[in-house]
């Protein structure tokens, strides 16, 4: 067991996967010699060489486009988009081909690739470096969209993602990259994609979250317990496509009160889908409106005002207390 940050845990997962399977390739901007701007691919170039850890020219569409061809030739490419804001030049390949190739060819060709990207705000970055576009990808049928929340699940989920026979968009909450360490077991682990977990059990309300916001949710739950005697259950979704509806229903049916928290904008965000699912199958258990504590429908502010945008424990606490008072 080692105490690792998320960056280290992801790095470990990649190294393990590359050792296991020579068809796993890593490609992206500055992922090789430099080890990635966040150091997630640190040391891989040295261990696996420039045929498997590939510094590409500056073109995201070509990175993903090439990966499609590499998949056709039987490889398992892991593409890095340097920042969430820079995956969009590749969007037409992801929308138009990555998620469709299996269906188009009735299974003859598939895209077992992973597109990794640092994700979300909270690192005092400039414009285009703090976005949370998970709903944009979750809406695209054919993809799986995974968002770990800590070092241990990050490492396990990345392993599952790379082994998955279908394309996975893998969002790495950059605010959690080095924020804390966790015990990570020596042997590789996997976690199923599409399954969330109860991050904190509780009886009075359900706070549904994922990614970096999970920490705020847990903090809020502590405060709710200590200050307001509210025993909140916190769900960590881990995947937003597929969504673990079962887990959500189970908790909601127990608590009847729900707060959804994510940093992405609200309109047509993942929070809306969660509410719609609850209404579809658990409406009668709902004792209050579902509160959405989210980023606003604005451009996330450059960093001096970023704090006001990102959902924090205080906003979650308020929403939960109000939901209980409804």
């Amino acid at each position: 067991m080692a105490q690792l940050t998320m960056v280290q845990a992801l790095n470990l997962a990649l190294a393990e996967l590359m050792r296991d399977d020579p068809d796993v390739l890593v490609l992206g901007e500055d992922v090789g010699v430099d080890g990635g701007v966040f150091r997630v691919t640190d040391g891989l170039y040295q261990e696996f060489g420039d045929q498997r850890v590939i510094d590409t020219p500056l073109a995201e569409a070509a990175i993903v486009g090439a990966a499609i061809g590499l998949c056709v030739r039987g490889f398992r490419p892991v593409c890095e988009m340097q920042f969430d804001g820079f995956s969009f030049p590749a969007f037409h390949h992801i929308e138009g081909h990555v998620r469709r190739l299996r269906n188009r060819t009735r299974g003859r060709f598939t895209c077992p690739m992973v597109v990794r990207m640092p994700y979300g705000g909270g690192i005092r970055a400039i414009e285009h470096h703090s976005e949370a576009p998970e709903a944009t990808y979750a809406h695209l049928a054919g993809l799986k969209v995974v968002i770990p929340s800590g070092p241990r699940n990050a490492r396990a989920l990345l392993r599952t993602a790379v082994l998955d026979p279908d394309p996975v968009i893998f969002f790495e909450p950059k605010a959690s990259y080095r924020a804390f360490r966790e015990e990570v077991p020596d042997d590789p682990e996997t976690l199923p994609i599409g399954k969330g977990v109860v991050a904190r059990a509780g009886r009075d309300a359900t706070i549904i979250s994922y990614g970096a916001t999970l920490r705020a949710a847990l903090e809020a739950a502590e405060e709710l317990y200590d200050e307001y005697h509210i025993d909140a259950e916190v769900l960590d979704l881990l995947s937003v496509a597929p969504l673990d509806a079962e887990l959500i229903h189970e908790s909601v049916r127990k608590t009847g009160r729900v707060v959804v928290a994510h940093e992405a904008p609200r309109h047509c965000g993942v929070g809306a889908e969660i509410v719609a699912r609850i209404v579809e199958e658990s409406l009668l258990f709902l004792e209050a409106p579902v509160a959405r504590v989210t980023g606003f429908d604005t451009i996330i502010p450059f960093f001096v005002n970023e704090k006001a945008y990102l959902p924090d424990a205080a906003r979650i606490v308020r929403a939960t207390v109000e939901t209980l008072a409804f």
Partner: protein
Amino acid sequence: MRVWADPPQKKGNRVPRENIPLPCRVESLSVLSADGVLDKDLEPKLPEADLKRLYRTMLASRMLDQRCLMLQRQGRLGTYGPCRGQEATPLGVAYCLREEDWFVPTYRELPAYLWRGWPMEKHLYWWGGSELGSATPDGINDLPLCVPIGTQCQHAMGIAWGCKLRGDNTICACFVGDGGTSQGDFHEAMNFATVYHVPLVMVIQNNHWAISLPRHKQSASQTLAQKALAYGIDGIQVDGNDILAVIAATSEAVEKARTGGGPTVIEAITYRLMMHTTADDPKKYRTAEEVAEWEKRDPLPRFAGYLRQKGILDDDTEAAFKDEINAEIEHAVEIYENTQHDPFDMFRYMYAEMTPELQRQMAELKRHLETPLPAPSPREQAGDVV
């Protein structure tokens, strides 16, 4: 501090500079001219059997294409995009590939598909609105027809890169239109291809039109072949209606790719004789004279003339080919029209394993299609129900 005035400029005469000589160039190639004149020096020496097979495939493509137009008019096919007049380039290129090589088309390469063994009904399925048409048959290393212009260049580059990494001696040939060269995807793919020195043959089918946009409005460059110079490699222009020239240029490019020489850009000059698709009316944007001029350069009679001159083709063979092909087409149409399509397939190929939500949605559709609507309600009057 901020004072604005025109900086002094030498009007007219340019500051002298040094020329930078580049090691790459743009060249052109033609073997069999439109009026049948053959450049014997350049003529590739192909086995008679191959020449015959090539001609038969070109003819089959022409006839199937024609038949598709008819089926479309009869409402038995969807919108159709014909390839009449452009047969020589895809066929010549396909001829230069080995079976295990990879082929990435745009959507006008029917003859290449036929050469590479796709059953004719696949073509009908695709234009007839079924994914069966884009399910590449097992054992054939081709990507299916797919229309997002330019994107295929990237996939082909990735495949070629994969060929290099696999070290299995295979290469990849890719098609793109004159219109497609304007997309960023073309540029990025060629840049990666040259940086990684992958075995890719990029064939630009310059058929002079991208729907209604003429070639000269697509790019201000004199040739499309010279796009290659941006990547530090040679470009070559060939007469794309001259299958011999296409084969001469492609076989060199393939050989170069296979032996580690990296990518090539070939611009094949050809012409779309028909409408863009059956939804298009080319009279809106081009003259009958222009089309007539290109009819004269039709690759099919040109190739036939060459073969007849060589004594490889005669009326009997031609007639026999036609009969056989007609039978093949009939057979394919029959298969096509007698195929049942299962709407539930839409759920089955999204993932290796269906997700719970997709299972739920599939069940929802099943229930809807298989259960009659609830019986009309016995309530007396609308508005009183709640």
